[in-house]
C-alpha cells in the first residue's frame, strides 16, 4: 500500500502495522543548523554573563571556570537534555517536526539518547559529520553510527488532516448524466485518484483545477467515446456515476 520508499512499517504486539516516515538528509541538516544557532546563542549569553562576573564581581577566575563548564554541558549535554524534555526532539527537530524513536517505534530512554549523542564524536569524523552522512546514505533507514548503535531512527511527526468529504457543486443534473455510461469502465485506482482530486479541488484555484483534470480527462473521454467542455466537471460526473449516484 505504501508507495513512499521513506516509510518504515512497524508492527505492534497486536499485529497492527503502522508506518513512520523517515527524516531525510535535508531535513536533518536543517534541524542541525538550527541547533547550532541555538547552542551558539546560549554559549554567547553564558560567556557574556561570565564576563560580567569578571568586570563587576572581580571574580574572573570563577566566571571563566563556569563558562568552560557551560561549554562542556552545551557541547555534550544539549541533545540528551532536549531529548529528555522534548519527547525525543531537539529544538531544531521540533521546528522541522522531527523526532527520535527507537527502531520499534517506541520513545527513546536515557541509554539510547546518551549513546546516539556521544557517538556524534565518531559521526563527526573526519570533519563536518562526513562519516555519519556516508553511513546514513548506505543505511536504508538513513541512520548515522550513533543511531545504529543505539537502535534509533529519526522520523517525521505526522499530523495529517483528513481531507474534506467529496461535494460536487453545482449539483449533478440529469441532463449532464445522459451521456455518461451507467457503469463507467474505471479501475479501482483510477477511481481513487479521481476521488483524491475531487477532495483537493476546494484547495485549488480554478485554472489549476482544470489543468490537472486535463491531464487525465482525455484518456477517459476516449475510452468512453465522450465529448466534454469542462474536464473537472467530467471527472466529477464519472465519479458520481461510478459510486452509483443518480441525478
Amino acid at each position, binding site marked *: 500500500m505504501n508507495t513512499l520508499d521513506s516509510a518504515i512499517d512497524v508492527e505492534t504486539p*497486536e499485529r497492527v502495522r*503502522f*508506518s513512520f516516515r523517515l527524516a531525510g538528509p535535508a531535513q536533518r541538516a536543517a534541524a542541525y543548523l538550527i541547533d547550532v544557532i541555538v547552542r551558539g546563542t546560549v554559549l554567547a549569553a553564558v560567556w557574556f554573563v561570565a564576563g560580567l562576573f569578571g568586570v563587576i564581581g572581580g571574580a574572573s577566575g570563577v566566571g571563566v571556570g563556569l563558562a568552560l563548564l557551560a561549554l562542556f554541558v552545551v557541547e555534550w549535554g544539549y541533545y540528551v537534555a532536549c531529548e529528555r524534555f522534548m519527547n525525543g526532539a531537539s529544538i531544531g527537530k521540533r521546528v522541522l517536526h522531527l523526532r527520535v524513536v527507537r527502531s520499534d517505534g517506541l520513545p527513546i530512554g536515557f541509554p539510547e539518547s546518551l549513546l546516539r549523542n556521544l557517538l556524534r564524536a565518531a559521526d563527526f569524523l573526519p570533519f563536518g559529520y562526513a562519516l555519519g552522512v556516508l553511513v546514513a546514505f548506505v543505511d536504508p533507514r538513513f541512520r548515522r*553510527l550513533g543511531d545504529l548503535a543505539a537502535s534509533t531512527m529519526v522520523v517525521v511527526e505526522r*499530523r*495529517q488532516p483528513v481531507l474534506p468529504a467529496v461535494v460536487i457543486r453545482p449539483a449533478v443534473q440529469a441532463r449532464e448524466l445522459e451521456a455518461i455510461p451507467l457503469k463507467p469502465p474505471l479501475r479501482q485506482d483510477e477511481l481513487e485518484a479521481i476521488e*483524491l482530486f475531487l477532495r483537493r479541488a476546494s484547495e485549488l484555484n480554478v485554472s489549476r483545477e482544470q489543468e490537472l483534470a486535463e491531464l487525465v480527462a482525455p484518456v477517459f473521454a476516449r475510452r468512453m467515446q465522450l465529448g466534454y467542455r469542462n474536464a473537472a466537471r467530467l471527472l466529477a460526473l464519472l465519479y458520481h456515476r461510478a459510486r452509483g449516484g443518480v441525478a
Partner: protein
Amino acid sequence: MKTRDEFVVQKQSAWSELDSLLVRDRLDGSDLSRLSALYRAVCSDLMAARAAGFGTDLLGHLDGLAARAHAVLYGHGRRRWQTGLGLLLSDFPRKLRESAPFMLAAALLFFVPFALGLASTLLSPKFAETVLPPAALEEMAEMYSKSVSEGRESGTNATMAGFYVMNNVGIAFRCFATGILFGVGSIFFLVYNGLVIGTVVGHVTAVGHGQNILAFICGHSAYELGAIVISGAAGLRLGWSLIATGNLTRLGSLRVAALGTVPLIAGAAGMLLIAAAVEAFWSPSSIPYPVKYAFGGASLVTVFSFWAFAARGTRRRDHEKPSHVTLEDPA
C-alpha cells in the same frame, strides 16, 4: 459497503477524542483505559481503511494517531529515565567486572606506552623532544619547578576545574565514541595519552622536580587515569562487537554491546568529575606532601575496591536486557 465519507463521519468523534487524550500531560486510570480502547479501535479502523483503499490522506491520519497512541501506551518513558543513580552505583561496577578482558586490554594500551615514555625520557632526555615540542616541555618543567606549598589563587582553581571537566571528559567521550571504528579510535587515544603523560612525568622528573609532580598528580590520577582506561575499554567493546559478532548480525551485535557500554561511559564521566574537583582544588593546595600521598593511596584503594566489591549480589535490573533487541518471533 460503506463509502469513505460515511466511514469518516461515523468514526470521526472517536478519533478526535483519542487526539484530545494524546495531547494531555497527565492521564489518570480511567483516561488510560479509555485511551487503550480508543487505540484498539483506531487500529482496526486503520486496517479497515487500508483494506478498502480509502485514500492516502486518511491512512496517513490514522497512521499518525495509532503511532502516537502506541508511543503513549507502551512507552513508560518516565521510569526509563530515572535510572541515573542506579546506573552509577550498581550497573557501573557490575559492567566493569563483566568487561574485565577489555579493561585489561585498555590498561595495557595505556600503561605500556606510559611506561615506555617514562623510561625512555629518564634514560635519554632527548627522547621527550620526539614526543612533544620543546616549548611545551619547557612549560611543563616550569609549571612544576615551584614547590606547590604556597598553593594557588582560588579564582585560578575555579577556572582550572572548568577546564578539566571540559577537556578530560571530552577526551574520555571521544576515546569511547571512536571505538565504533573497529576499536581504532580508542586504541589511538589510549596509546597517545599514555605516551604523552608518561613523557611529561619523565621529563619533569629528569629536570629534578619529581617530588612536585608526584605530589600534584597522586590525588586525582586514580580517578582520572582509571576513567580514561574505562572509557577506552568501553570503546574497545563497541569495536570488538563489530568484529566478533557471536550468533548475531553485525548490527545486532553492535546494539547489544552498545547498550552494555552506557553504564561504563556514564561511570567514567562521574569519575572524571571527581578527578576534576580534586585536581583543581586539592592537588595544587598547600597541604603537606605526606598527606597528599596518603590521600592518593586512599583514592587508589577506593577505586579498586569499588570495582571489586560494589553492588555484588544485587539483582540484575530489567533495563539491562534491552527489550527491543530480541530475536525474531520463534512462532
